[in-house]
């Protein structure tokens, strides 16, 4: 049952977030609506669950709350495989296939940046307890340097059943989307129950696109927005293959400041209650609004934008690099808990091998006091083979800031291992903070047990799974001089040759006493060499009586050249 929804949330004063959610549920290998290209890849590489996100920009949790799907800057891919042997090879083949499918450099997700998280990335769909506790079949990798552009939006749109010509997807104007602060493409495949009896599993494909705009620019400070202003298009058709075609606008703040009104008037307004948090959602059935003309949803504000403090989300995090110089440094991550209750978090970090993390320097502090984590999973890196993997489970105290610090040393790479712009630096992936919130404040994701957004409007659960990604880091490494390979080889070999030559001389030759006047300069030696060839039978008895002439030692040859030139004639007779 495919469904398409559109959520608009004013996430903070001055910014508008649009999320475009498409969910397709289909039976295994039934390609009526499920894209065959993706389905083929999933079956060939025995994939049980796949989560790919491609993001440009950073989601500001403390200002904007929580997005429906949290994603780190760059590309993130985590996959749960069906149990089989040789998962490493399957992973390598899968990332190559996906890189072709999504036009992204996913093939760089090799063993140098892939980890197997033990606690942070449990299956999001159906899975047995035994299977999900075993981290042998999961692989997680990120590419923080990756840039997302139109080339990635096009294959994403191609996976939609109606394509990009009709329906909500026709609004996606790539010029306007990539003008925004933040945009995130997501493809999430998981197993769900087909019906309430759950006898056979179905594969669910969820595609998400989250865009954050700033509508106040060019509008005289008023944050009016409309489809025309955001996408340069209006909605003119609806996808006949979709079961549910709805647009949701979050109107919780419509009556309080800032006041705004929607046009056309929504069909009805829902109340969403989630563990004490109430939200009002205006619902539009697309079919009712397409005739006589296209749908151009507008929000008009009465007054200009005034900035004020927004409420902070329950848990958010910041991470940054500390230290100076190119030899060593440190990483500090601050996790803020603004709730009045303690909560347990799982903190996962993946650090590339060339930043040598010192496990002995890892500290977790809260208000100056050291916290001992419940569990630590630290896998040190092997040079050029796998990265550092760190997973910590510890408690966040209420209304406090917890600081995680560790120090690292920067390695010196081979000259071929630097990227083209070596002084730009190297990226370190986001840290992942996973926790379970007791309150759903600013929480907009669908709950894990349901597929459609509406089903989470009447959510009566009391715990909400949250995953946060922090900022990526940019770290410079000391660089060699890239123009010098030949010079370096020559100079180093020269020093070795100095030693070799001297030791060779000293060990293969003996000291002898010789007449300095009998020694010849270079020119004289050459002359005598040619003359000897002509006169050899005559000179033989003479040469035996002479002192042994030196042949090779040129130490004093230059100083004696003048003398020997004078005595040349004498010495040759």
């Amino acid at each position, binding site marked *: 049952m495919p469904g398409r929804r559109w959520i608009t949330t004013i996430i903070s004063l001055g910014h508008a977030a649009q999320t475009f959610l498409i969910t397709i549920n289909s039976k295994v290998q039934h390609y009526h609506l499920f894209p065959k290209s993706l389905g083929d890849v999933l079956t060939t590489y025995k994939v049980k669950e796949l989560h790919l996100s491609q993001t440009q920009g950073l989601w500001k949790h403390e200002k904007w709350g929580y997005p429906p799907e949290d994603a780190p800057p760059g590309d993130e891919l985590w996959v749960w495989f069906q149990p089989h042997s040789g998962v490493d090879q399957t992973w390598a083949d899968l990332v190559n296939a996906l890189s072709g499918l999504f036009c992204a450099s996913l093939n760089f997700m090799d063993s140098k940046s892939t980890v197997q998280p033990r606690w942070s990335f449990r299956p999001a769909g159906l899975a047995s307890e035994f299977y999900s506790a075993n981290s042998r079949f999961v692989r997680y990798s990120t590419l923080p340097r990756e840039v997302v552009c139109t080339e990635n939006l096009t294959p994403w749109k191609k996976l939609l059943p109606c394509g990009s010509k009709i329906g909500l997807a026709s609004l996606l104007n790539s010029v306007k989307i990539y003008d925004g602060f933040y945009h995130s493409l997501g493809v999430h495949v998981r197993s769900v129950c087909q019906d309430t009896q759950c006898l056979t599993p179905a594969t669910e494909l969820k595609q998400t696109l989250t865009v954050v705009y700033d509508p106040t620019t060019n509008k005289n400070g008023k944050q009016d927005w409309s489809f025309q202003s955001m996408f340069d298009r209006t909605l003119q058709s609806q996808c006949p293959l979709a079961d549910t075609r709805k647009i949701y606008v979050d109107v919780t703040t419509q009556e309080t400041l800032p006041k705004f009104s929607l046009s056309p008037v929504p069909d009805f307004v829902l109340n969403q209650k989630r563990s004490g948090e109430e939200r009002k959602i205006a619902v539009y059935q697309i079919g009712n609004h397409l005739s006589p003309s296209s749908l151009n949803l507008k929000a008009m504000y009465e007054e200009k934008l005034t900035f004020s403090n927004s409420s902070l989300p329950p848990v958010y995090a910041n991470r940054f690099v500390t230290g100076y110089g190119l030899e060593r440094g440190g990483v500090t991550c601050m996790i803020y808990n603004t709730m009045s209750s303690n909560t347990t978090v799982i903190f996962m970090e993946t650090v590339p091998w060339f930043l040598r993390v010192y496990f002995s320097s890892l500290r977790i502090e809260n208000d100056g006091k050291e916290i001992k984590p419940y569990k630590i999973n630290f896998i040190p890196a092997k040079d050029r083979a796998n990265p550092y993997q760190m997973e910590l489970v510890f408690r966040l105290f209420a209304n406090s800031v917890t600081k995680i610090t560790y120090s690292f040393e920067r390695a010196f790479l081979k000259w071929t291992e630097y990227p083209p712009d070596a002084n730009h630096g190297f990226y370190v992936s986001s840290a992942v903070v996973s926790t379970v919130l007791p309150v759903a404040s600013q929480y907009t994701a669908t709950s894990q047990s349901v597929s459609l957004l509406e089903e989470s409007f009447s959510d009566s659960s009391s715990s909400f799974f949250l995953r946060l990604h922090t900022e990526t880091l940019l770290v410079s490494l000391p660089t060699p001089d890239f123009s010098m390979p030949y010079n370096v080889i020559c100079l180093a070999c020269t020093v070795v040759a100095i030693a070799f030559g001297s030791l060779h001389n000293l060990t*293969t030759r003996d000291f002898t006493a010789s007449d300095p006047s009998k020694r010849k300069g270079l020119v004289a030696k050459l002359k005598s060499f040619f003359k000897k060839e002509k006169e050899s039978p005559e000179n033989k008895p003479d040469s035996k009586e002479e002192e042994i002439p030196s042949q090779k030692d040129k130490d004093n040859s230059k100083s004696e050249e003048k003398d020997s030139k004078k005595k040349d004639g004498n010495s040759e007779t």
Partner: protein
Amino acid sequence: MVLPTAISFVCGVILRLALFRSSLPDWLSTKTEVVTPLTSWGRAMEGLALHREGISPYSGDIFHESPLMLKILGFISRFSPNTINLIFVLLDIIQGMILLRIANTFGRHMLLRQATSVKNYHPDAKKNLLRKEDLMDLQFYVTVAFSFNPYSIATCLARSTAVFNNIILLLALYQMLKGNSFLSAVFVALAAYISMYPIILCVPVAVHYFLMSRKGGMHYTDPTAVVSYLQILGVTFVSLAIMLLFSMLFVGSWEFIPSTYGFILGVPDLTPNLGLFWYFFTEMFEHFRTFFICVFQINVVIYTIPLAIRLREHPTFLFYMLLYTIGIFKSYPGYGDVGLMFALLPLWKHVYQYMRNTFVTVCMFLVCTVFAPIQYYLWIYAGSANANFYFAISLAFSTAQILMATDLLFGFLKREFYLHNGDKHKLPDGTDAQIILDS
């Protein structure tokens, strides 16, 4: 001579204790000239932290000490930082005591050898012979050379684990001079277990053993001689095998071998140091990397054979020359090796007058020692220099060490020539002849 020796020894200890109180140890333990990935105390602590957590220190690429060192360092690290500093000063005291004994025994050993071979000397050479009075103050000079040697002090302050390597090498030399060749071979095996290259030192020990037990005019290639060489080699390799077996039992698997010996041989870590390997292999084309690794590793050990043949009558000097070749050409050299060379240099002070390049060599050492941290700082912290500056210093330092080694060998061989042939060489017409190296 006892009082000045004692005073200089005590002054050296007090100097180290005083410097431990300053900020110098923390600064020195970050200096790449002093500590290398193999000998760094920080890395040793990291390996121990992983070991305590239940993660094998050899599963990562930070810790590269052998399992025996893991145990010893684990024992040391349990104390407070001040006690650890005292332990390192104590290790330096032990080193100083062994050097004293070596100086003592060396003097006696040289006089004995001289007495047996004086019949081969030229009659004119009497004034060049060593006398007991000259050898009495060897202890003083060796103590001064060790106590006030900036390289040894830096190694001690930085808490580099090269001190253990140095102690074992000095014990091997001491036992060799005392005549316990088998015990010396065991110490050589222990040094090889820790840092691999000293295995070549079993050659001077074998030659010395043969010379000690030589009867009559036995030649070096006689079957009995070969048997004695094989005895020493056998003792060395058997002890090494036993140590490796114990390490395997301690760690539980053979995984420490790629992390220790594989690391020394394969040079994957290109951290800057005062050696020739790091920048050479940074700028090496991948295609040729294995070839040049083999060439450079062979270069470390190849000088054993020609030096052993040339210095077959003088195994102690051969031992010392091999210490030079190891210290210059090893994959991760540091000031620990240089300090050892300087500490043993006064033993051959009778050779100094025949050396030719002392001024140049001393100047090069001074300049490189001062410039190295400056260029490193400019490259890494100030950003106003680049890697070439530090590379130039490392080349100049290696050249200075090579010049010192070859000059010393030259002086030694020249002295031998003068002893055997007298120092007055006249030509038929009465003018002075020239002594040159010739084939």
